């Protein structure tokens, strides 16, 4: 890893609050940190500490109240909603705790979904999906619906979907939260491979010490503030 | 009571969904009530018919007249208290759109036979004195502004020419179901004019109206009248006033039947909508039902909850629908004007509306209640939405 290379995520003085009725609840009170390209970062902290909020902002699905946030060189706080949607489709891969697959689409179709936002032909899309399926080891399940897959298999489909557009960063919100120990280990290995072999930058929010152990960098969030290591 | 509280709170969980469903029921019950009122209005003539009046017309069809000379013979028949006659005039008031029934009647005897047409005695005197006088119903007075002293000109269609009358009185109906959209004038005026213009058409009447000494004489008198004129130039057909009115209805029966069918269709539509709502609601609460079962509540209790909620929503919507039926029917009746001279929401209609609302609520709850009763606790607890 080249330490002097441009960090892929640059955050400065990020502030975010939520409104609950007439109360304003501060969630992030001035976060500053960088994430290097190819890093595997785990964000940990007690519930309500704002780690998911931070992740959401890095992923471009939420906007901070103030502060600067640059991902892959782009100031995403300045993008309009349409531009952000576009940006996300090219730069972010999502891995959710509950997989978030479309129940009425097959594994193949779920993975294909992000490619519908590109100009690829149906045949080209098929080739990419096949490659992704084989990478996560589910080629023989491509026609199955999520209800016909186990939790671990569903998460692998989700991961295949996350990498299909060759995104800049992978964000994972409690990826092992709904899995048993064995499946969780499988998933974490897979993520590790994506980080190591494909050089994907991974930012993961987790409670799970097993998951945190796989990460290269662990940051703790406490009441909206970051603490080192 | 706990149960009621539970039902109402459950119904209000999804305010939008419950609101929309209730709105749908209001619309459906309202439409149903309106349609049934239309059907009732169709039969209004028959409903207002008197049991002590008979109508005698030409046996071939209503379009053919009867000779004036029959009057004397009818009066002599046993059981006949009084006789009068009327001619359908069918004139046009300004334009064809302003349709209302006009009759040339034997004034004194006719109004005696129809006590439900109430006229102030002073006005009646004026009318009897004026050959060209006319008495109009309250509904006409409201629609066209007729008042005593007004001149009204009718363009004749059956009896050609422009006929001028002077309104001498306004009659009110003794009951709500009395038709007050009719226009009466003197047969004598009609006859005099026809004697000059087309003598062959003079001294004829459209129908005879017979007043019975008592209602149970109806069959006997009917037979006697028709027997008297059998094998004559103009054979008669006598029937009770109700049968006479029903005769008109039966000619447009197809339409009435269609309206009745449609009124039930609307109930089916809303039943489908409500069944859908309850099915969705029940499916979303599968885990809750399973939990209740785990706690020890039996399938009957679950069914009661679902039925209760469904009936509550249907009942609320139904009640509002019934309440709204009255003003809407009033408006509709006014718009229809003389097409439906009597347009009242009957008690039976309201009862049917209530029954319909409850039926919808009950049927809609059937399948969901059955499903809920059958939930296996373990499966149900795992169920996500």
């Amino acid at each position, binding site marked *: 890893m080249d330490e002097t290379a441009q960090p892929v995520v640059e955050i400065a003085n990020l502030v975010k609050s939520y409104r609950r009725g007439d109360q304003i609840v501060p969630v992030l009170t001035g976060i500053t940190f960088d994430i290097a390209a190819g890093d595997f970062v785990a964000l940990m902290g007690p519930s309500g500490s704002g780690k998911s909020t931070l992740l959401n902002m890095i992923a471009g699905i*939420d906007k901070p109240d103030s502060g600067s946030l640059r991902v892959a060189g782009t100031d995403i706080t300045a993008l309009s909603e349409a531009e952000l949607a576009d940006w996300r489709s090219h730069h972010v891969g*999502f891995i959710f705790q509950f997989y978030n697959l479309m129940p009425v689409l097959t594994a193949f179709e779920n993975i294909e979904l992000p490619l519908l936002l590109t100009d690829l032909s149906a045949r080209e899309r098929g080739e990419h999906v096949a490659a992704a399926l084989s990478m996560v080891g589910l080629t023989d399940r491509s026609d199955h619906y999520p209800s016909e897959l186990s939790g671990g298999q569903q998460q692998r489909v989700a991961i295949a979907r996350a990498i299909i557009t060759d995104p800049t960063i992978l964000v994972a919100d409690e990826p092992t939260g709904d899995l048993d120990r064995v499946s969780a280990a499988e998933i974490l290995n897979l993520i590790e491979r994506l980080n190591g072999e494909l050089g994907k930058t991974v930012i993961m929010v987790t409670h799970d010490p097993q998951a945190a152990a796989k990460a290269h960098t662990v940051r703790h969030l406490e009441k909206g503030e970051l603490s080192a290591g | 009571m706990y149960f009621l509280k539970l039902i109402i709170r459950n119904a209000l969980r999804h305010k939008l969904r419950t609101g929309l469903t209730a709105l749908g029921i209001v619309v459906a019950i309202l439409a149903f009530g309106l349609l049934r009122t239309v059907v009732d209005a169709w039969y209004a003539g028959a409903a207002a018919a008197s049991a002590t009046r008979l109508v005698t017309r030409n046996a*071939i069809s209503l379009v053919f007249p009867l000779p004036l000379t029959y009057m004397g013979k009818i009066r002599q028949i046993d059981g006949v208290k009084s006789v009068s006659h009327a001619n359908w005039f069918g004139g046009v008031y300004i334009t064809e759109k302003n349709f209302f029934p006009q009759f040339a009647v034997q004034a004194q005897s006719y109004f005696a036979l129809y006590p439900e047409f109430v006229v102030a005695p002073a006005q009646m005197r004026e009318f009897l004195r004026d050959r060209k006088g006319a008495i109009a119903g309250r509904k006409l007075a409201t629609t066209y502004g007729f008042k005593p002293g007004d001149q009204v000109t009718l363009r004749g*269609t059956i009896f050609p020419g422009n006929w001028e009358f002077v309104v001498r009185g306004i009659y009110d109906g003794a009951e709500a179901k009395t038709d007050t959209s009719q226009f009466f004038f003197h047969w004598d005026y009609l006859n005099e004019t026809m004697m000059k213009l087309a003598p062959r058409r003079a001294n004829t009447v459209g129908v005879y109206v017979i007043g019975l000494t008592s209602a149970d004489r109806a069959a006997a008198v009917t037979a006697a009248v028709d027997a008297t004129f059998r094998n004559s130039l103009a054979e008669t057909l006598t029937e009770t006033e109700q049968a006479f009115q029903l005769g008109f209805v039966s000619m447009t029966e197809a339409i009435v039947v269609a309206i009745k069918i449609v009124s039930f269709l609307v109930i089916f539509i809303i039943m489908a909508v409500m069944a859908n709502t309850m099915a969705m609601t029940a499916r979303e609460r599968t885990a809750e039902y399973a939990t209740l079962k785990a706690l020890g509540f039996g399938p009957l209790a679950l069914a009661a909850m679902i039925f209760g909620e469904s009936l509550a929503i249907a009942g609320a919507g139904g009640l509002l629908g019934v309440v709204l039926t009255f003003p809407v029917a009033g408006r509709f009746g006014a718009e229809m004007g003389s097409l439906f001279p009597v347009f009242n929401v009957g008690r039976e209609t309201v009862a049917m509306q209530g029954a319909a609302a409850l039926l919808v609520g009950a049927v809609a709850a059937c399948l969901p209640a059955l499903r809920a009763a059958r939930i296996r606790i373990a499966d149900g607890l795992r169920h996500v939405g």
Partner: protein
Amino acid sequence: MRIPFSYTFRNLWTRKLTTALTAGGMALVVFVFATVLMLEEGLRKTLVETGSHDNVVVIRRSSQTEVQSAIDRGQAAIIESQPQVALGAGGERLVSRETVVLVNLVKRGTERPTNVLIRGVAPLGLTLRPQVRMIAGRAFRPGSSEIIAGRSAAERFKGAGIGETLWFGLREWRVVGTFDAGNSGFDSEIWGDAVQLMQAFRRPVYSSLLFRLNDPESFDQIRAQLERDQRLTVEAKRENVYYAEQSELLAKFIRYLGLTLSVIFSVGAVIGAMITMYASVANRTGEIGTLRALGFRRRSILAAFLTEAVLLALVGGCAGLAAASFMQMFTISTMNWQSFSELAFSFTLTPDIAAKTLLFSLAMGVVGGFLPAIRAARLKIVDALRAI
């Protein structure tokens, strides 16, 4: 950038009961809507095809209908002598002096009497109406007490079938034939010799005159002439226009009542669609958030849910239309309020009606699905994802 159609379609397919109920409600509404349009069209066709553009009907001024009209022999002679009256092959004037009478006949299978129109025609009466063909038996002999019945009248009334007899005007009349008038109003009539009928009913005057124009464009000319003539008090109309006007009241009533009902019903169906779609959005909030996170735009979400509602409505629409098309097997017979005689007509489905019906169901889908689709599109990504 579009969310695939299979996503929309399969979501409807998965929730079969809900889809069936919602589409079913819409199908019923569409059924009523289509049926009313078909009824109106059937009525219009029956009456418009009654009568020809080249024929003229003359009745007494202001009498509105033949039943209330009277034309005496003197007037008839004057009208016949007009130059615009066409001449036949043998030089005879193509005129039919007709007399029309309403008679009470009993319907087959019931004891209910109904008004039926008996038309006395001149021998040329059939010739003047080329759309009328004998389909059984033969035409009546002039000067006899023979009559022929329209197909509909023969079917529906006791004694009007071929070989049967009717009693009216103190005489027995034998039915010697059945004619088909192409589903027009004439199908509900019974025809006989005008002179014989006038004698039987002791009517010395005719009800109307029917003649063929020698030049179809000369109608305005002859109408003006007849109305100016001081010896006459008549009005003239093209035959097809006359019959179209006869049904105006009934047609208007059907249209008014039918459309009012359809509007009211459609409110119910739209409400049903809204309930279903709101639930659909609520159940798939997580999916919506995911799709937005992946980069799909708000308008794609809007389009997907709107499409779902429209698809639902189209299914209902097709089902309702299919059911309505079965109504073509039925005939309605009712009294025409203006002519006072019974008229039989059927439901007629035209491509125009089918198109209007599908458009109507589409509209219901759009109206019902619009607000829920907007709600789906307006969800904030983080809120939607949190809902899981």
